[in-house]
C-alpha cells in the first residue's frame, strides 16, 4: 500500500538535496558560463533524484526486466549523460541535438523491450511490424518535439517557470499512474518532480534565472525533466492503467506555456508570466486528475475501504 509519509519524506529530501547542491555550487564555483550552469543543474537534479529514490527504498534489479527499471537504470542515466555532454558541446549545438535525437530514438524501444507489444504474434495484444514502426516513430517524434519545445522556451522569458510547469506535469503523471493502480510507477515520478521544482525555486532566488549560468541550470534540468515525463507516461500508458488521452494531455500540458509568448496574451511582468503559465498548465492537469480520481473512487476505492474496515 502507498505510504504518504514515505512519499512526503522522499519529496522533502529530494528538494532539500537539490537546494543544497545549488547553494554549494553558487558559493564555490566561480565560472558563470552556461556549460558550468548545465553541469550544476544536472548534478543537482541527479543527486536530488538519487536521494528521493533512496528515501523511497526503490528496488532496482539488474538486468532490468520491467519498463520502470529500464527507465531508472538505463534511460535516466543516459539522459543525464546526454545533457551533461550537451552542456560541454553547447546546449543548442548540432552535436547536442544529434545526441538528444539519438537518445529519443531509443526511449520507446527500451521501455517496451520484451513486453507483449513486441513479442510478435505469440501473445495477445502483440503489435504487427508496421504498428511497431509507427509506434516507435510517434514516440521518437513526441519525445524529441517535446524536448525541443521545452528547451526553446527556456531561451525566452522566465525559464524557471518552464522547469516548474514540467515538475507539475511529472507530479500529475505520478498521481494519475497511482490512481490507476500502479503505485510504484507513480511514486517514481515524485523525486524527479521535486528535483525540478526545487531547482527552479532555488535558481530564481539565488542565481538569477536570466544569467548565463542560471539559464544553463534550467536547460539541464528541463532536458532531464522532459525526457522523464515522456518515459513515465509511456510506462503508465503501456504497463499501467492511464489512458492515451490522459497521457497525451499530461505530456502536452507544459507546452501551453507557449501561450504566454503570444502577443495577444503576453503578460508584462515576470510574476504575471509565471502565474499565466502555471495556471495554463494546471488546468488540463487538473482535468486529468479529476477524471482519474473519479475513476479511482468508482473502481479502486471500494477495495481499500474493505481493507480499512477490516483493519
Amino acid at each position, binding site marked *: 500500500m502507498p505510504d504518504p509519509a514515505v512519499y512526503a519524506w522522499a519529496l522533502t529530501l529530494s528538494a532539500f538535496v537539490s537546494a543544497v547542491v545549488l547553494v554549494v555550487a553558487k558559493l564555490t564555483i566561480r565560472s558563470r558560463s552556461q556549460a558550468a550552469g548545465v553541469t550544476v543543474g544536472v548534478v543537482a537534479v541527479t543527486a536530488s533524484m538519487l536521494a528521493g529514490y533512496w528515501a523511497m527504498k526503490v528496488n532496482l534489479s539488474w538486468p532490468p526486466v520491467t519498463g520502470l527499471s529500464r527507465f531508472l537504470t538505463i534511460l535516466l542515466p543516459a539522459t543525464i549523460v546526454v545533457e551533461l555532454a550537451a552542456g560541454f558541446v553547447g546546449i543548442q549545438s548540432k552535436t547536442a541535438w544529434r545526441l538528444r535525437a539519438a537518445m529519443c530514438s531509443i526511449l520507446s524501444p527500451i521501455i517496451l523491450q520484451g513486453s507483449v507489444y513486441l513479442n510478435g504474434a505469440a501473445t495477445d495484444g502483440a503489435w504487427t511490424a508496421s504498428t511497431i514502426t509507427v509506434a516507435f516513430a510517434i514516440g521518437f517524434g513526441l519525445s524529441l518535439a517535446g524536448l525541443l519545445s521545452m528547451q526553446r522556451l527556456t531561451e525566452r522569458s522566465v525559464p524557471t517557470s518552464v522547469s516548474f510547469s514540467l515538475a507539475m506535469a511529472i507530479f500529475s503523471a505520478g498521481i494519475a499512474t497511482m490512481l490507476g493502480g500502479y503505485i510504484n510507477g507513480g511514486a517514481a515520478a515524485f523525486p524527479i518532480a521535486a528535483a525540478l521544482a526545487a531547482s527552479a525555486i532555488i535558481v530564481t532566488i539565488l542565481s538569477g534565472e536570466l544569467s548565463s549560468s542560471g539559464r544553463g541550470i534550467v536547460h539541464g534540468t528541463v532536458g532531464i525533466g522532459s525526457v522523464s515525463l515522456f518515459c513515465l507516461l509511456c510506462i503508465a500508458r503501456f504497463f499501467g492503467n492511464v489512458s492515451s488521452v490522459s497521457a497525451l494531455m499530461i505530456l502536452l500540458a507544459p507546452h501551453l506555456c507557449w501561450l504566454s509568448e503570444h502577443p495577444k496574451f503576453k503578460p508584462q511582468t515576470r510574476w504575471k508570466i509565471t502565474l499565466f503559465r502555471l495556471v495554463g498548465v494546471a488546468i488540463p492537469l487538473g482535468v486529468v486528475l479529476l477524471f482519474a480520481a473519479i475513476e479511482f473512487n468508482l473502481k479502486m476505492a471500494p*477495495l481499500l475501504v474493505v481493507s480499512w474496515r477490516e483493519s
Partner: protein
Amino acid sequence: MRRFFFAGVMSFAAVMSICGAAQAADDYSYDLVHSSVSFKARHLDISWIHGRFNEVDGKFSIDRQDPTKSTFALTIKADSVDTANAARDEHLRQPDYFDTKQFPTIEFKSTSVKVIEGGYEVTGDFKMHGTTKPIRITLMGGREIDTNGVKRIGLSTELKLKRSDYGFDKSGIGAIGDEAIIIIDCEGMRK
C-alpha cells in the same frame, strides 16, 4: 544374401522397438473444461483471498514403461487472473503485481520425473514474473480411464510459493500475504 536378410531383420526389429518405445509415451492435451488452476493468499493475515486463472494450456507425456521419461508442461495466461472482483483483477494485472504486459505467461516445465505411490514427484522450472526457479511438486493421480473413446487422466497438486522469490515488489505485498498457495487440478485427454 543371408547377410542382407539378417541386416534387414535387425533393422526392422530396431524400427519396431523405437516405435514401441514411442508408443509407450502417451501424449495428453490439457482439458480446459475439466481443469482448474486456482490460488489463495492471506489477506491481512486473518483470512484467505481466492482466485483462479481462466486461460491455461498444457501438455503431458506419460511413459508407462519408463515413467522417468514422462514430461509435464503448463502455461498459464497471467492476464486471465480472476478473483471475482474486476477492479482487483485489473490491479493484479498491473506492474506492482503480475505485470502481465511484461510477463504474459506463468510457465512450468518438468526436468525430471520420479514415480511415487499414487503419482509422480516432478522437478521442473517454474517461471513467473520473469524469474525462473526450480521447484519440486507432487503430482497425484495418473490413472487413465476411457470415456466414449477419449482417454483421460487426472492429475492434481498443491504448491506454496513466495511472491518475493519471484521478483514481486515487497512494498506491493502489503495486505496480501507473501506466500501464495497454488492448487492445480487438471485432466489430460487423448484419443
